[in-house]
């Protein structure tokens, strides 16, 4: 089989493994949907003054789409790779002829599939239950999600290289992720000129969330060429490159204890 065919082959098995592992499916898949339902229900009818009185859920739903992608890509890959490395599964795989690019192709493909499913569910829940409108910025949405998923997959692989062992993985990964999620205004909106926003601007999460929001922003002109947040997408792209460099240089197949 060629490397791309083997990547598709891997994707099939990655899907099976993902859905059969209840903790991973819960934490990366159910979490974003749970957050959406809780916060959207609590804040129905609220409006955000610094966004010109925009409805809270019109801002919050795209934020949860971003969170879903981060969860499916960054958290999922960082955890999965740490656990598989520590248990010797990665080393075992290294002894087979499976090309590296096919292995990662399957993993990243799996993360993209989960991201897509989460995006569809989140959007539908937002539209059906919380009065969210989608202004039709389809192209911007697809480009933004694809770039964001790429960025957070590369950061997930890079993160797995920095995690010392499988036991430490949840603490390290969530310990890095959640503070940045909060200061990036994912769960409640933060004014753009506040101190938190300045710190959050260094990291890719706020930019990615803003870029997704931009594709849902009803104040922008409608149409396929609109909804792109160029500056935010640029920062996400830079982080994608940084993540890839760290991932390629630091990734290890063998457990640290040797």
């Amino acid at each position, binding site marked *: *089989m060629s490397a791309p065919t083997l990547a598709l082959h891997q994707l099939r098995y990655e899907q099976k493994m993902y859905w059969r*592992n209840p903790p991973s499916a819960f934490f990366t898949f159910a979490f974003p949907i749970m957050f959406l339902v809780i916060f959207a229900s609590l804040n129905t009818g609220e409006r955000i003054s610094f966004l010109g009185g925009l409805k809270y859920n019109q801002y919050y739903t795209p934020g949860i789409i971003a969170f879903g992608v981060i969860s499916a890509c960054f958290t999922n890959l960082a955890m999965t790779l740490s656990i598989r490395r520590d248990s*010797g*599964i990665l080393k*075992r795989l290294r*002894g087979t*002829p499976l090309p590296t690019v096919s292995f990662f192709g399957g993993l990243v493909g799996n993360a993209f599939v989960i991201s897509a499913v989460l995006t569809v569910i989140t959007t539908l829940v937002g539209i059906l239950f919380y009065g969210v409108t989608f202004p039709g910025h389809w192209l911007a949405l697809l480009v933004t999600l694809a770039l964001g998923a790429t960025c957070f997959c590369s950061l997930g692989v890079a993160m797995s290289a920095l995690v010392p062992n499988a036991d430490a993985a949840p603490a390290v990964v969530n310990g890095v992720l959640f503070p940045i999620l909060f200061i990036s205004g994912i769960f409640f909106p933060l004014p753009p000129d506040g101190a938190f926003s300045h710190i959050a601007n260094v990291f890719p999460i706020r930019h990615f969330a803003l870029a997704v929001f931009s594709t849902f922003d009803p104040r922008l002109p409608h149409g396929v060429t609109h909804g792109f947040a160029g500056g935010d997408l640029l920062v996400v792209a830079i982080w994608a490159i940084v993540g890839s460099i760290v991932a390629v240089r630091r990734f290890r197949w063998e457990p640290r204890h040797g």
Partner: protein
Amino acid sequence: MVDVAVIEVRHLRKSYGPVEAVKGIDLRVEAGEVFALLGPNGAGKTTTLEVLEGFRRPTAGDVRVLGLDPHDGGRALRQRVGVVLQETAVEPYLTVREVLRRNAAYYPSPRDVDDVIDLVGLDEKRDARVKTLSGGQQRRLDVGLGIVGNPELVFLDEPTTGFDPSARRGAWELVRRLTGGGTTVVLTTHYMDEAQALADRIAVIAAGHIVAEGTPQSIGGRDTAAVRIRFRLPGGETPPMTVTSYQQGWVLIETDDEVPVLHALTGWALERGVDLDGLTVERPTLEDVYLALTGTAATAVPDQPVVSV
């Protein structure tokens, strides 16, 4: 197919920082052989195996596996080699059949997955998830994954450690079936009976050196070593030949020429009407040879630390 080296190692050295785990070894494994590497923990067995498997780059020396450099042999080489590591590691959420089918697709001409399942004795577990298998069953699946690609060469690092005696016999039977099909097998083990039962040739490695190499029958001079004749004698009796030692009523005679000695001894005993209580005649066992070799090696290089790797 005469004299085809599947593995050729010359002057292999491997250091981890300041510690030299393998200190210049030579090996040659021929096609179709079962070759066993014996040695105490930390002697350099696994390091040697991991160099051959391509996981480690040698510090010095020349290593060829199926004619290729194992570290740079890439996909072409890994398609022809099966690797079973010391620690079992299989994805827990797939079934036995799924994980074998997945891995079979990595190889150009894999074995039939159901044949592999039967070969490793997991036919009743083919649709069971890996995490529900016992440790021994997971190990057998691991061996199955090592052979599903129909490799020419299989590495088995301590394949039966932790097995109960009947599971070990089953694993031996599997190795014999593999070699019956022409596969070359390189294994490490702690068990002398395993090496004796399976190996065509054995190399004993101690403190990073190969201290002996040969067939299980001849290694360490087993076939030519002195025969030990032991028996008890009633007090006051002295046999009519050179005695090596007397210990608590036991007489020990070591000789290279056992037939005349035994003839003289039994003739003497019959003539005198003396019983030779508990008479045994034995050559050193593989275990005796192994302990002598590894013990000697450890004292021969006393200032070299034995490192766990």
